[in-house]
């Protein structure tokens, strides 16, 4: 299920209370794709983490559809991420000792018993869709591109409506990065909301909407 994102007057502060990110207004329609750009240290990743509910916002609101994420406690935000968000990180962040399928179906470890089989089935289908074989070997033996696709399969195993990606192509060669971009855009075309933090000019060029963060402020 996709949700529109609505951020209003959001301020994120450091542990000592210093403002590190201010977002007066930001909207992302359900099924829309956008890329967040800006120099290193500007607050791009912080924005991604804030709208994922990984940091507590000091002021303002973050609303995904009917859910005001910023008003929820940690358990509520965690449950929202589990049910609605898929995360792709810069350097895969896989459990390299586990197989591709086990990595993709990681959520089955903490999901309710009744959902586990469906999660593993979904993870398997996603691996198939991304052209990866369901082998028993650990993911340390896969190439960088394959590992990032496993990470994508993990993000999509529970069929979330929102995909958040933090520099997903940063550690990939050009050809592999382009293939991953194709995969992500294909997901967006199928109605999932897509928000990507990226320095990659090729990826930026392929996504119509760009949002820039400068000195801790979102310049829409």
């Amino acid at each position, binding site marked *: 299920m996709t949700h529109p994102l609505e951020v209003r007057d959001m301020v994120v502060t450091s542990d000592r209370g210093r403002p590190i990110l201010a977002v007066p207004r930001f909207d992302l329609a359900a099924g829309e794709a956008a890329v967040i750009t800006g120099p290193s240290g500007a607050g791009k*990743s*912080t924005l991604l*983490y804030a709208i*994922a509910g*990984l*940091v507590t916002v000091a002021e303002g609101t973050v609303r995904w559809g009917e859910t005001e994420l910023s008003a929820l406690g*940690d*358990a509520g935000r*965690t*449950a929202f*991420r*589990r*049910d609605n*968000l*898929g*995360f792709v*990180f810069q350097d895969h*962040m896989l*459990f*390299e*000792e*586990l197989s591709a399928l*086990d990595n993709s179906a*990681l*959520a*089955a*470890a*903490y999901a*309710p*018993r009744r959902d*586990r089989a469906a999660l593993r089935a979904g993870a398997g289908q996603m691996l198939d869709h991304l052209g990866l074989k369901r082998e028993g070997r650990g993911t340390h033996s896969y190439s960088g591109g394959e590992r990032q696709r496993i990470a994508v399969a*993990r*993000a999509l195993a529970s069929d979330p409506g929102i995909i958040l990606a933090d520099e997903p192509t940063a550690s990939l060669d050009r050809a592999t990065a382009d293939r991953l971009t194709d995969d992500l855009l294909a997901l967006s075309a199928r109605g999932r909301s897509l928000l990507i933090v990226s320095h990659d000019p090729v990826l930026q060029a392929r996504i119509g909407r760009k949002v820039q963060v400068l000195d801790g402020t979102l310049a829409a």
Partner: protein
Amino acid sequence: MLSVWDMVSATAQNIVLLVLLLLPGLVTGAIVLRGYAAGRLLWALIWAHRWVSLVFAMLIAVSVAIGTGLTAQERGLREGSAKAAEPFDLIVSAPGNEITVMFAAVYLQPTDMPLLDGPTYQAIADHPRVTLAAPIAFGDSYKGAPVVGTTPQFVTHLAADLAAGRMFATPEEAVIGADVPLQVGDDFSPAHNIGEAAEEGAHGDFAYTVVGKLPANGSPWDKALLVPVESVWEIHGLANGHTADWDGTLGPPFDPAFFPGTPAILVRAEALWANYALRSEFSTERTMAFFPGAVLARLHGLMGDVREVMSGLAILTQVLVAASSLAALTLLTRLLSRRFAVLRAIGAPRRFIFALTWSYASLLIVAGAAVGLILGLLTSRVISAVISARTDILVQAGLGWPEFHLVAGFVSVTVILALLPAALTLRRPVVSDLRS
């Protein structure tokens, strides 16, 4: 309630106690892991840090091995020494130290002891409730093993059936313990004295012929060479206990006038209860009567106090090692913090991270404890063999319920302690860990 408990068999009581000791740990595990299927992930984390995990588990294993090995060893020594003393109901000697006499008469650790004279022996042997009154004579040896002079009746009391051969019937015959490296038909010449002071050839050409061999009974008597007490007296230039018209039948009755003296008399009464009356009767100004079993019980009581202190120290060591390991594990969780942060970012609840950390620690504790039990068993067996070789008391240390209870209690306490490092992982900042 207590009466119901008393009606239950000892095995059932031990099983119930084991379950009760394990229960806190099992309940903790059931609560912490409820609703999760963390097996694959847990294995991945342990495999990723397998060497560090192995060190933790081995530290725990060594501490458990020390604790269980110590208690198993102490019990084995206690049981072995008690079994060795079983044939000795009552010992009568000249007044002195009961422990010294017991060590000499039961465990064949010779020492200089005053002798009981003929009339004293006669009074004991003639007592209507005494069925066996065996004088013993120490002082000779053969290749380091004690040569003990006694009566055929006492040898029969030690072993009703010989493992080989027959009872000695002449002063030149001997029956040997199971571990003496001689066979029936072999001859040996006794040396005067024992150990470094042994004088070979002091008794001239006198030689015994082995005519019988005792079965093993796990005591120092397995290495002893038993000979007629008459011959021991004779080769030392003393009377042989009998009058000049002696028909050559070994053993009592002895004539008080020709009785050279004995350091101890091994007494057996017609019934168990009669031993108490005999002890009382023979505890006089000139004689000391005691039950080796009672002296041993006092020694074991003393050992028991030491055991309790040692067991306490062993448990303390185990808990300290476990606590150190858990403290180190807290540091290890920092290595895992990025992986935990990923799990949190993709929707894993805090309680899942808590469960994962706790099960990581608990698995190492349980594995370490299991390996420790095996190590403890192996170590105590090696030490038992060494003690048996040095004391000739058969010590058989094995794991028993006390060890299982000790380990069950240890596991329960430490897996509950493992909640602490698990709780600390809840405080980790997810975003900082993702960026680390």
